[in-house]
């Protein structure tokens, strides 16, 4: 018995060492990415087939976690590429000096998609696919609940969708952050936040991860989700009974890849970027599980009939000219605002919005209408002004590193947690008051 057990242990150990050594390879490429396995895996397999001496090591991290990771490992960098959707994430890294310049020589990629430049004009990151934001829905759910398909952001604020919609939070999802920022830039700071609050008031849930939204729609947990286009398109491609639409206020923004400064395998990294831009690489984007918009216009000839084509269809993405510098400067601040005002107080917000819907469904007297208007204003109220939001010194409270002395001076001692606690009391009071006013209006 002992001999057998000894043999077992020894064999296990041998097998483990063999397995371990077989994963150590000559050429390596380390990619930090927020993309799901369906996408990174498909490119990894195709790239490794073309370059058999290189092993692609995928490190999956959500956009914000990926940025943190690269910042924290910068003194001892082991990553070659950062590969994510949100261009403002790349702007954050670019400003920190963590990206290396590289412009691919591959031809056939135009300068713009929609109204947005495909590549970073300074050459620090390259666009390889485009994506827009919109709404996806579950056909069976809508049928079962007698709901129409949504078409605009304004539709999402309507009373019929109460408790039937969902979204992730900008702090947890680079793409959701872009969606929030796009609406803020498209409608204006104050009007944009008001829209978000009333859209949020209809949410059944704010998912912990961006994938929670298409997941919820796919499984029929809720009916409509605010998503990046490829979540909707890939769900349809995978066979789920779902649909997707781009609203008018959307922007087409490229998904990017950039070489990290002091990359251990810089040459392999450049090869990978080149591969993404070749016709062969671009075609991978059409895979039903991936479904992202290629940046090479010729690739669309191989796409299925209903596949959106931003180079032919002018309506997609022209309405908003996305200011990526503004987005970058208030990145963490917007995350904090959304979380404190909407995510963390979703129940309070929902009861306020639902009370307002209820009041509006009745025939109101002029006083009642006044009360409802007040209630709406209370819900939409913001604890800070647009100027404060765009003030870099204020936005720095929400950053971990303080680079300049004057950053510390102006808001000295203000900790992020403290400011957020102030905002929290502000919105809780407002939502409560709004609910009361709306109920009062309804009872008249």
């Amino acid at each position, binding site marked *: 018995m002992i001999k057998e057990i000894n043999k077992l242990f020894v064999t296990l150990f041998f097998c483990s060492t063999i397995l371990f050594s077989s994963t150590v390879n000559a050429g390596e490429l380390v990619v930090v990415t927020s993309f799901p396995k369906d996408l990174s895996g498909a490119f990894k397999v195709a790239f490794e087939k073309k370059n058999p001496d290189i092993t692609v090591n995928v*490190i999956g991290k959500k956009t914000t976690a990926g940025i943190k990771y690269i910042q924290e490992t910068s003194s001892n960098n082991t990553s070659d590429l950062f590969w994510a959707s949100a261009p403002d994430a790349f702007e954050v890294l670019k400003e920190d000096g963590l990206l290396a310049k590289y412009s691919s020589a591959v031809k056939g990629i135009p300068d713009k998609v929609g109204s947005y430049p495909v590549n970073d004009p300074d050459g620090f990151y390259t666009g390889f696919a485009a994506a827009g934001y919109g709404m996806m829905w579950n056909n*069976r759910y809508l049928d079962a609940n007698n709901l129409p398909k949504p078409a605009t952001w304004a539709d999402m604020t309507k009373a019929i969708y109460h408790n039937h919609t969902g979204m992730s939070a900008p702090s947890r999802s680079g793409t959701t952050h872009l969606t929030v920022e796009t609406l803020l830039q498209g409608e204006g700071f104050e009007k944009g936040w008001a829209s978000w609050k009333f859209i949020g008031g209809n949410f059944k849930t704010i998912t*912990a991860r961006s994938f929670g939204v298409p997941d919820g729609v796919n499984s029929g947990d809720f009916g409509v989700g605010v998503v990046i286009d490829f979540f909707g398109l890939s769900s349809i491609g*995978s*066979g789920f009974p779902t649909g997707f639409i781009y609203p008018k206020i959307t922007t087409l923004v490229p998904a990017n890849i950039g070489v990290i400064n002091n990359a251990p395998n810089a040459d392999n990294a450049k090869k990978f970027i080149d591969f993404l831009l070749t016709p062969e690489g671009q075609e991978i984007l059409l895979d039903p*599980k991936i479904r992202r918009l290629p940046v090479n216009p010729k690739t669309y000839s191989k796409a299925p009939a209903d596949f959106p084509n931003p180079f032919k269809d002018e309506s997609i993405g022209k309405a908003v000219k996305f200011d990526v510098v503004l987005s970058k400067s208030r990145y963490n601040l917007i995350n904090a605002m959304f979380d404190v005002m909407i995510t*963390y107080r979703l129940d309070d917000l929902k009861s306020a919005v639902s009370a307002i819907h209820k009041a509006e469904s009745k025939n109101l007297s002029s006083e009642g209408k006044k009360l409802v208007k007040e209630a709406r204003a209370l819900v939409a109220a913001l604890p800070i002004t647009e100027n404060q939001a765009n003030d870099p010194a204020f936005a720095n409270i929400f950053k971990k590193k303080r680079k300049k002395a004057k950053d510390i001076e102006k808001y000295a001692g203000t900790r992020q947690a*403290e400011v957020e606690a102030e905002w929290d009391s502000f919105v809780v009071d407002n939502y409560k008051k709004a609910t009361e006013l709306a109920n009062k209006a309804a009872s008249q």
Partner: protein
Amino acid sequence: MNLRNTLSLKVAFFLIATFLIFFLVIPVVSVFYTAFIDTYTGKFTIVNFLDFFKNKLFIESFFNSFYVAIMSVLLASTFALPLSYFTTRFQFRGSIIIQSLGFIPLIMPPFVGAVALKLLFGTNGTVNLFLNKFMSFKIPFMEGLNGVIFAEAIHYFPFILINLVASLNNIDKSMEESAQNLGSSGLNLFRKIVLPLSMPGYVAGASLVFLKVFDDLGTPLLLDINNMLAPQAYLRISAIGIDDPMGYVMAVILILTSLAAMWIAKLALAGKDYSMLQKGGGGLAKRKLNFTEKIMAYGVIIFILLIVLAPHIGLALLSFGTIWSFSYFPDAYTLNHYKEIFETSNFIKNTFLYCSIAAFIDVFLGVLISYIVIRTSIKWREFLDYTAMAALAIPGLALGIGYLRTFYQFNLPFSNKPLASWWFIIVIALTIRRLPYALRACNAALTQISVYLEESAEVLSATRYTILKKIVVPLMLAGILAGFITSFATATVELSATIMLVSNDIDAPLSYAIYSYMQTAAGRGPGAALGVIAVVIVGIGTYFSQRIIEKKQNEKLINLN
């Protein structure tokens, strides 16, 4: 017993102590330390804790974690109580089903089954679609915190069942007879005499369940619940970075609450040993069931059985199903998901690698620690035992955070890679977290070996090493094997520490792969398939572990004759 404390044993003590200090004590201390440091000045402060308690969201998360843990205990007790009542009060063959109920839920970790439970019991899941169609109402089984409570209760109710049954069986018959003499009977007797006497066992089981639910990260994360302490800590660290003090504050609170729960369990069990059931000594009188009672009993048992098996059924359906959306069952079935995961098999390979190394180190340490504690008189030897067991109270999340904090600065020798992103750090985390199980198994095995056997060998001039190798270890073998298998099987499905420490796809084990698969539209099928494989591994492991222990117990009984 006081045998000579040879140099080799003292060296072993020192090395093991260093290992435990380096990989358990220091990371935990670093978590505490960071929680008490001001981010800007680097000085000691309690301002982080004040910030925590001023923030309504954090307080809410704290209370939610408490609420979920307590409710899980209550719901689990609701499942366990009737079952324990039937098993201990009545003679009937359904007891076998009950005993297997004590085993089936434990082989599926709650996070694996969570997604499947949502499909079966969610707002538009199988059960609610059915209820809504025929009776026009829905039950919010999986809404918000309810989903976490439901998943955790289903998984952990066996802890309470087993403890309750064991303590009921240890009650002295004379207690019951005295009460009957004074005119009490049936439910009254059960409620006023039997149940209070079994309280210590119940409290021990309940505090263990409370502790594990309070610390669990995977289940709330997969159910998209983030207003609980563990997921909040994880989200903050991953979104804001390892310098965010709030993550550490939450880790400290998690650790302190776990320690408190474990202490309560220890108090409840003080002086009692539940690992061996007395045969024929204690226990209550059992009576036979009449026909209606039998129907009721079976009815309750089957009902509970269906609920408890729901995650397994759901997971299996999901792993074979094509599309499951707003319908009773998947639209169609396929084997493609299994094909896919076997083609990308590095997860299964990694899991076997990590878990077998971890389990091997665990039993190695387990044998040495139990030998040193029980057989030698080296000073402070109990430190090894207490420290190793304390690993149970450290939530995986806190350990992961501690490792990131402590080991990020160190590089591996001969390379630029930080220690914290080397795959072996996952193995070490698994080793530390599963050491208590192996240690308890080795302890139990060693206490049953008579010291005289060793003394005889010593008289015949065998060295300490020879004694260990040729006498002690062979006699302990069944316990060692059981410990190895338990460590291995439970390490397979560890997620909380793993998710903090996995830095890339190639090094990722099974549990992490399940989590990351569940993040894509087309990935739920393969993720479920991986989940099924994980459950099978744990199930087979637990089964063999039980068989070995039973075989050993039977051998002992035979020997005594």
